């Protein structure tokens, strides 16, 4: 498997919404390549016909009765928000003006 280039890490950091500095990018390229090389070992395990396992317990559709139960008060939910207004979370702009 190919190792990661600096551009790859820039792209991944963008997908992960982490604004890495140049120094962080330089450091991470080398570290991630070493880790990737090591974890690529999973490809050596003969597992072609083996089903994937996503979870230790084979559970499907755990449901509860559709009943109203107490939930957080609005002020409790907003208490730790970076900013709030009119009983809502206040966030930076989502769209650009143009």
């Amino acid at each position, binding site marked *: *498997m190919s190792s*990661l280039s600096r551009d*790859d*890490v820039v792209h*991944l*950091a*963008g*997908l*992960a*919404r*982490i*604004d*890495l*500095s140049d120094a*962080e990018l330089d*450091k*991470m390229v080398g*570290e*991630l390549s*070493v*880790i*990737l090389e*090591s*974890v*690529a*070992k*999973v*490809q*050596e*395990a003969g*597992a072609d016909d*083996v*089903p*994937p*396992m*996503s*979870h*230790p*317990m084979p*559970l499907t559709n*755990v449901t*509860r009765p559709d009943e109203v139960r107490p939930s*957080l008060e609005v002020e*409790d*939910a907003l*208490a*730790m*928000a*970076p*900013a709030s207004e009119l009983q809502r*979370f206040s*966030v*930076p*702009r*989502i*769209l*650009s003006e143009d």
Partner: protein
Amino acid sequence: MSTDITRASAAEIADVLARREASAAEVTQAHLDRIAAVDGEVHAFLHVDAEGALAAARDIDRRRAAGEELHVMAGVPIAVKDVMATKGLPTTCGSKILQGWIPPYDATLVRRLRAAGMPILGKTNMDEFAMGSSTEHSAYGPTRNPWDLERIPGGSGGGSSAAVAAFEAPLAIGTDTGGSIRQPAAVTGTVGTKPTYGGVSRFGLVALASSLDQAGPCSRTVLDAALLHSVIGGHDPLDSTSIDAPAPPVVEAARHGDVKGMRIGVVKELGGEGYQPGVRARFDESVKLLVDAGAEVVEVSCPSFDYALAAYYLILPSEASSNLAKFDAMRYGLRVLPEGVDDPSAEQVMAATRDAGFGDEVKRRIILGTYALSSGYYDAYYGQAQKVRTLISRDFNAAFEKVDVLLSPTAPTTAFRLGEKLDDPMAMYLNDIATIPANLAGVPGMSLPSGLAEEDGLPTGIQILAPATEDARLYRVGAVLEKLLVDRWGGPLLTQAPVLTAKGA
């Protein structure tokens, strides 16, 4: 109190309280005093809640005086890893991104501690979002090992293991995603159990990797771990992966340990090359003690375990990259505006905040997980890791057809020096090589002290693994081994730990 109550086990404290030889307030105060004396050096706690703990203790004293029927653990104080949501108490997960965050609700596990009347002394230090094996990745500085303050206390739950080892708390809560309860227990000479996946509710546990995370007890004795396990275990409708069955009979098992006729497997793949000689020597000695006690020991091979570390470091980052997406600077936690940008967008604020708020290891794993899940690489990495997970689970199933429990050293080495592996992620990851398979398969595991390594005089741990939902077997075997070892040592291992110099003493 004539003797130092902080040296007592949780079971002994519970007895003292039930006999009214000491009040819960006195016991709690004694532990707060101990924290004040030694935690400047150990740094096991990120937050100490003296007022809240004493109020809870006084409430128990009042109810006991009124003749109320109380839980057996009522009044026994406890420390809680800072990854569990505690209403009214800061919960940071060792991260700057959650600095000062006070949850509006209690985790189910915390609710159960409070319902049992256990005063919460405070929140313990950890690697940021539980990513690490040394607590050095905490944004608030590392915890130090009470056996040697220049060494790591394990991780991610090094704060909980150190608090218990330094007699700052008789009990603590840990969480174990790849060994974060068991490895810290091993390197601090304490006991820790990772219950069967789904055995303890994850509601209110800030998720690292949801299919691997499991909370459990940290203590100084096997019985104490069982007592705490039974307080926090059992079904919770708020966690859809919680096992819908009563908590396993762990306390009975710990009280009536017996290995006569038991079949015990030593895992061939966990314990050879790469394991420190002193760790191996203490392990072999423990195995021999169990044989002498009537157990039948055989070697068992689990060939797929050789791929466990690689599979884990794909599955965990993949799940973590998704779980940690919620730290987006919008609803709680840090919000940082990018420099030099007029009227920044939500996405720019998010990216600036996540760069400022997450530490290096968290960023590494998020980006690794993002890669493993990205289109074009998914099958080769995440998909393949999931197949390996099946193979590991099959290895466990095959092994447990032959034996009742499995044994291995808990960690390949004793506590290493602070800073020694900080700049080498792969070397750090190797600390969890023996503990990871249990998380991948969901089976329960316990670490208990096996002695001191001859070459450095530091604690070593032995790991017991059992089939899913058979947690009681860990305690059955652990209790026997603990008794045999303590008899051999002439007292608990921790009595051999150096005395911490109390501040101002």
